[in-house]
């Protein structure tokens, strides 16, 4: 536990963290970039999820939908993670003490796991159902779970702002 405390202090005491905390413009700007990137991540993932669920883009093969959208998702995710990390290091201890922050990280990890399961297990026979409107249950489940998890990620993100200890 002592190691973790030192680890946090290392970030919080850095001059970068100091600048983000002290500067009136820097934190809101990083936060705005974070919201912008998250919007792209969640919006693009939902478009893919809706295809998996059979609600949208059903006349297009799943492979074409993912190929046309997921590069944008990954690009935006890198920006969201980087901006999120910058906000984190400015107030690391306070974030770690916030239940919604921990929940948000866990939910993102769960969404990643869901994606891996879909990619490496459920999508192994994708060529058989790529062009179908109604996909196998495993694919529909992956889309539904992903959608619920990302909605929860956004909710936790917003709740962090209302439950962080001030000052």
């Amino acid at each position: 536990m002592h190691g973790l405390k030192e680890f946090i202090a290392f970030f919080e005491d850095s001059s970068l963290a100091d600048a983000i905390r002290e500067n009136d413009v820097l934190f809101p700007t990083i936060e705005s970039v974070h919201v912008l990137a998250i919007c792209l991540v969640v919006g693009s993932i939902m478009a893919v999820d809706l295809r998996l669920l059979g609600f949208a883009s059903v006349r297009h093969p799943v492979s074409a939908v993912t190929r046309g959208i997921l590069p944008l998702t990954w690009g935006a995710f890198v920006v969201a993670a980087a901006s999120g990390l910058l906000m984190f290091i400015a107030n690391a201890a306070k974030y770690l003490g916030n239940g919604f922050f921990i929940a948000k990280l866990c939910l993102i990890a769960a969404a990643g796991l869901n994606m891996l399961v879909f990619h490496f297990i459920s999508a192994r026979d994708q060529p058989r159902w790529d062009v179908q409107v109604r996909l196998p249950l495993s694919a529909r489940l992956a889309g539904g779970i992903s959608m619920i998890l990302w909605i929860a990620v956004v909710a936790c993100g917003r709740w962090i702002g209302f439950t962080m200890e001030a000052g």
Partner: protein
Amino acid sequence: MTGAIVGDFAKWLGSTSLSHEIQTAGWIIPGLQTIHILGIAILFFSAVIVDLRLWGVLQSDARLGDIARRFLPVIWPTLLVLLITGSFLIIGEPRRSLLNTTFYLKMMLLVFALVVTAVLQWSLWVAPDFWETGRGRRIAARFAATLSIVLWCCIIFAGRWIAYTQVG
């Protein structure tokens, strides 16, 4: 003069029982904001995916007209959800936005962005290959796409900055 009228209106709005209800139940404002952000996610992504296609980035194997028809119509019902959740957020905390220049900047940018979106959607509806015939139009398409992306980014920025520029 108008400032006083808006101030009185904000004061009255804040004293209504609906406003009081929204303020006192702690989960309503973050809940509304969550729905609002999810709406922005859908709208922003839909606009950006078409804008990127105008630049020739992503989905280049699909026709521009098809991409526009798939993604742009979603924007209008989503906008309705955003206006409703936004209105309730204003009712809950009238002074936060109604007495805030950033809020009016956001609304002006929104009108501008919606006009750009509507023109794009309409042009692609009546002539799906309009923006792809001729060099001049291709350049104009990229200009419109860039303008659209920049406007939506500014709207999202302004939205977040409302929280940091409120008076009192």
